[in-house]
């Protein structure tokens, strides 16, 4: 009788496909227009994360261009909405490999990108706010491609600062090298973190190796025969969310650059760094994979991997609206 059960299951799946397709169409017709980017919202995320989903088989010129466009758009929209920090992740390390392109082409109004740790570039080309000075993070930020070399506690995080440049004063313009380790507290500054799998479990493992290395070196120096390590969540947090890492996002937006394989499409995190998403609100509607036109969905036709989609402003604004309505209880 297993053939009968299989047949009935096949019929169930067919009915499920029809029902969900109709439901997706209803959603697309019924959705309300989200608030504008600069609209007042009950709460706005301080830190927003963007998860770009690209199929392993669909990494091509078009999908790379869509990823970069999505990053540029997301940064501009986030800044317009009052978000102070944006983190972008993709599993194929596309954006970290292209970070120089992003740094060069990202236009956030009257500020320019400063790469954390990039001490040789362009200090003479930019004016810095008089106080506080920008951070100088030394060699804390690795170049893409060297993400596997984590011996110096590099966590594969590329950080770009976009300080707000103050207007020139005729007698007080100064050009100097930043020395402080504190990040600029200018309220209108913006920070962009670019992540790859090197920032995820690989980074946590690298941190464990560093701790072990440090303990062994200490044992060697003082000649003790045994030592155990005691770690707290605060210790781990200081490292992973510290200057070499990135802090926890308040909101995550999931965008499918490649056409998804199924509808509805349940959420998957594709290797996004796990430590930081403890309390992150995740914006994902399985019946509305963003920006894809499902009216042409044909389950019997193989997917066209040459098409790609960039992040849509409406979906971005909808995520901000949903976040404004979410309730946080923190265990209470």
């Amino acid at each position, binding site marked *: 009788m297993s053939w009968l059960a299989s047949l009935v299951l096949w019929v169930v799946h067919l009915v499920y496909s029809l029902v969900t397709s109709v439901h997706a169409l209803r959603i697309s017709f019924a959705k309300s227009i989200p608030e504008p980017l600069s609209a007042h919202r009950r709460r706005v995320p301080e830190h927003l994360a963007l998860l770009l989903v690209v199929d392993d088989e669909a990494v091509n010129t078009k999908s790379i261009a869509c990823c970069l466009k999505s990053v540029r758009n997301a940064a501009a929209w986030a800044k317009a909405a009052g978000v102070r920090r944006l983190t972008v992740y993709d599993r194929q390390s596309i954006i970290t490999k292209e970070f120089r392109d992003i740094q060069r082409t990202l236009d956030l109004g009257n500020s320019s990108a400063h790469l954390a740790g990039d001490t040789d570039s362009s200090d003479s080309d930019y004016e810095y706010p008089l106080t506080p000075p920008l951070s100088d993070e030394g060699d804390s930020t690795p170049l893409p491609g060297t993400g596997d070399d984590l011996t110096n506690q590099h966590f594969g995080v590329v950080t770009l600062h976009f300080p707000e440049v103050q207007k020139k004063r005729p007698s007080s313009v100064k050009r100097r090298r930043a020395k402080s380790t504190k990040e600029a507290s200018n309220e209108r500054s913006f920070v962009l973190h670019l992540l790859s799998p090197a920032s995820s479990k690989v980074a946590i493992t690298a941190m464990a190796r560093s701790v072990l290395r440090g303990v062994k070196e200490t044992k060697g120096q003082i000649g003790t025969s045994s030592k155990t390590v005691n770690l707290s969540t605060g210790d781990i947090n200081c490292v992973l969310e510290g200057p070499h890492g990135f802090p926890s996002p308040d909101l995550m937006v999931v965008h499918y650059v490649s056409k998804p394989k199924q509808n509805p499409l349940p959420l998957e995190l594709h290797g996004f760094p796990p430590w930081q998403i403890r309390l*992150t*609100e995740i914006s994902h509607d399985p019946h509305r994979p963003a920006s894809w036109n499902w009216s042409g969905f044909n389950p019997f036709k193989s997917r066209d991997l040459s098409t790609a989609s960039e992040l849509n402003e409406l979906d971005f604004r909808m995520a901000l609206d949903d976040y404004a309505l979410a309730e946080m209880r923190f265990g*209470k």
Partner: protein
Amino acid sequence: MSLFRQCYDWLYTQTQDTVLSVLAAGPIPQHVAFVMDGNRRYARRKHAKVQQGHSDGFLALRRMLEICLKLGVRCVTAYAFSIENFKRSPEEVGALMSLAEEKLQELCQHGGLLQQHGVRLNVLGRKELLPERVQIAARRAEEMTRQNDRAILNLCMPYTSRDEITTAIESTINDALAEDRSPASLSESDIDDHLMTSTPPDVLVRTSGVKRLSDFLLWQCCEDTQIQFTATYWPDFGLLDFIPIILDYQRKVWSRAP
């Protein structure tokens, strides 16, 4: 009425078993995790006490555990109590601890659900934070079901994922020190091996409409786990809510088939 009720229950069970047999003709997730959220909002909606919401939540856990076992799911992990939940009122925490003690005993009694289906119970988390009576009940339940090998029920209480990851990293480092391993030899699989849960879930279900992981199985779920957020409150969650989740999983498996 009693006869009518018996007929109704029999018909309901037969229908449910038929539905489960149909679903089981396709791929079934081997490990399902549940964030059992919404007990208090469920109680408020019914104008009942919060404790009633938690009691009905336990019934939902029993119901879903039975459904999963009949489907062939080999491991169910449920987020029963977060370390953060100790911030709740002493009255609610006390009631939850009493419920936990009572239900741990009930689950493992002879002829009970766990013994019937050959389920081994593991209580995962910072058990030393639990009242002594609950620790004793947990230990007894684990001992009574230790020989069962058909399936596993992990009850995470009190638990947070960051605490689990921290403990795993600490144990990994200390074991490496004891074995005099080189730092370069440490890998992700070493940390995997030191976690409280051995396999990542195929599906994680969070009820009550909240779209967060809330410090649950962060390491295990960040790769290929299908994460399903449903608006249904946990005490109301049942087979009808679970069917589309299983169908989604089956479509994923079929879409990846060579």
